[in-house]
């Protein structure tokens, strides 16, 4: 099976976010970047599929040169090959742009995929668009927010999380799957894995290699403004006997929040 995983580099969730108000972008300096946690579940699932049924795991990321670090991590976890498709455009919030780029890469370079694994969303921008859009552009079935995946031959079933329940979905390959927490426990890189990854090349692809022109992928959304959240007004904090505290809390719920 030819398993493809799409991975993205995101700022660590602990990061202090600073805004460049002039450009309407996040200041990248001083941020630590990591592999999107949902993509880590996708990589782990890919490795498990390979272990169960054989095949090859290829990882692709679209982004800046620095994305090599997360690709190295994927290789150290056990991926067979990793490619970087260079794109220096700052975040556009336009999932369709990214989906078009990924689709072009798949069609031009990796058209023999049997399954495409994604994270359910890029943490931080929380778009949750790219997997469904790729599925549409390639005419494939999609199952998003997956917590259980079973593949047999060219058929699959998956559980996808919805409000208060799970949907059981059946599909045939090739298909787009996006991973939710709970799908698996990602493994740690082993020392051996890290050493092997060090030796592996990460080929770099460019838009020219894919015959992709800027006008094919101009963003369809425009950032008009980026702001910090309004500061929350300081609340009332009390330190009293439990009985009194409970009374005051219920008074607050009743009189101010008016929920009871």
């Amino acid at each position, binding site marked *: 099976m030819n398993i493809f995983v799409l991975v993205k580099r995101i700022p660590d969730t602990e990061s202090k976010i600073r805004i460049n108000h002039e450009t309407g972008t996040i200041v990248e300096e001083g941020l630590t970047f990591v592999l999107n946690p949902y993509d880590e579940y996708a990589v782990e699932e890919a490795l498990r599929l390979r272990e169960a049924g054989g095949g090859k795991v290829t990882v692709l990321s679209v982004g800046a040169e620095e994305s090599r670090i997360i690709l190295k991590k994927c290789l150290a976890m056990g991926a067979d090959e990793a490619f970087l498709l260079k794109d220096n455009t700052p975040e556009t919030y336009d999932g369709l742009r990214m989906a078009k780029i990924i689709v072009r890469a798949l069609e031009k370079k990796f058209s023999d995929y049997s399954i495409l694994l994604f994270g359910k969303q890029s943490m931080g921008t*929380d778009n949750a668009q790219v997997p469904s859009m790729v599925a549409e552009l390639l005419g494939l079935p999609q199952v998003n927010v997956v917590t259980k995946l079973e593949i047999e031959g060219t058929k699959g079933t998956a559980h996808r999380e919805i409000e208060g329940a799970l949907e059981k979905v059946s599909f045939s390959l090739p298909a787009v799957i996006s991973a939710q927490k709970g799908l698996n426990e990602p493994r740690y890189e082993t020392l051996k894995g890290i050493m092997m990854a060090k030796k592996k090349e990460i080929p770099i692809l460019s838009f020219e290699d894919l015959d992709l022109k800027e006008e094919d992928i101009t963003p369809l959304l425009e950032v008009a403004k980026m702001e910090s959240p309004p500061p929350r007004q300081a609340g009332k904090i009390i330190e009293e006997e439990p009985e009194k505290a409970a009374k005051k809390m219920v008074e607050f719920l009743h009189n101010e929040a008016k929920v009871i």
Partner: protein
Amino acid sequence: MILIFIEVREGKVKKSSLEALSEGKRRADDLNTEANAVLVGHNMESLAHEVLPYGASKVYVVENSLLSHYSAAGFSQALFSLVEDIKPEVILFSASSMGKDLAPRLAAKLGVGLASDCTRTIAKDGKLEVVRPIFAGKAFVTLRFKSSPIMATLRPNVFPLGEPGEKKGEVIRKEVVIPEDQIKAPALEILREKEAEIDVTEAKIVVSGGRGMKGSDNFDLLRDLVSLLPNSAVGASRSAVDAGWIDHQHQVGQTGKTVSPDLYIAFGISGAIQHLAGMSSSKFIVAVNKDSEASIFKVADFGVVGDLFQVIPYLKEELKKITSE
């Protein structure tokens, strides 16, 4: 015209899509246009009448027996035919599980940009702009659209539900032709572990516990409170979920769910940034924590410094008093 997708799950109209309709109607009024709704499925006509009071001028019912089970491929095909036909300027969805799955597929079919999980919509210069939180609410971005129709999903529980009024609109039935091989990955079955609980993303009140709860049995204390509060659900921090005290479905935060209830109560939760990411858009936040320095108090509207195990029993009594009044 603004078109709003109305979601039906297990025979019921989802409240969050009526919120989207209410918001769509407000913007349609600003833009001097009409708000129309669309239901997709099989045998939906009676449900269309539940939608009319929320201000839809027309409710389209797009039907085909192949659409009795949800699939993004099938539903987006059905919506695509309607959009081609009626040419809306704006299409809105709730950012529910179905909305998040379906809207991007339709946007790709239409070749247009989509803004996800918006918390505000603005009519400006005759067009719609949207605002959405990014980076766990550490920033807000205002987006403009350069493609048409404009498409956005709206975060549940954020937009006020309009007052149901007179049913003035009309219901329009549309049969669509969908080749069977277009129905890819249908959801054949819905699996539920327990009795249908209210999901944290849909509850008006979320009562959450963290590591301070000390064990899984103690979550019964929170379930007791939930049974006394209308329209409420139990939430949890990741520490509580990772300890195995409660299922991941209940986790609030960056790797869990994003909730915006009217009231969020945090028991024994320190208020890590990844937790705040999931709940800081709640209308009111109440916290009980024995550490007066806990970060949760920085976002709380009302905080009690104290031992949750001592406070909860009194809280139960007080709530009982008020609910029996």
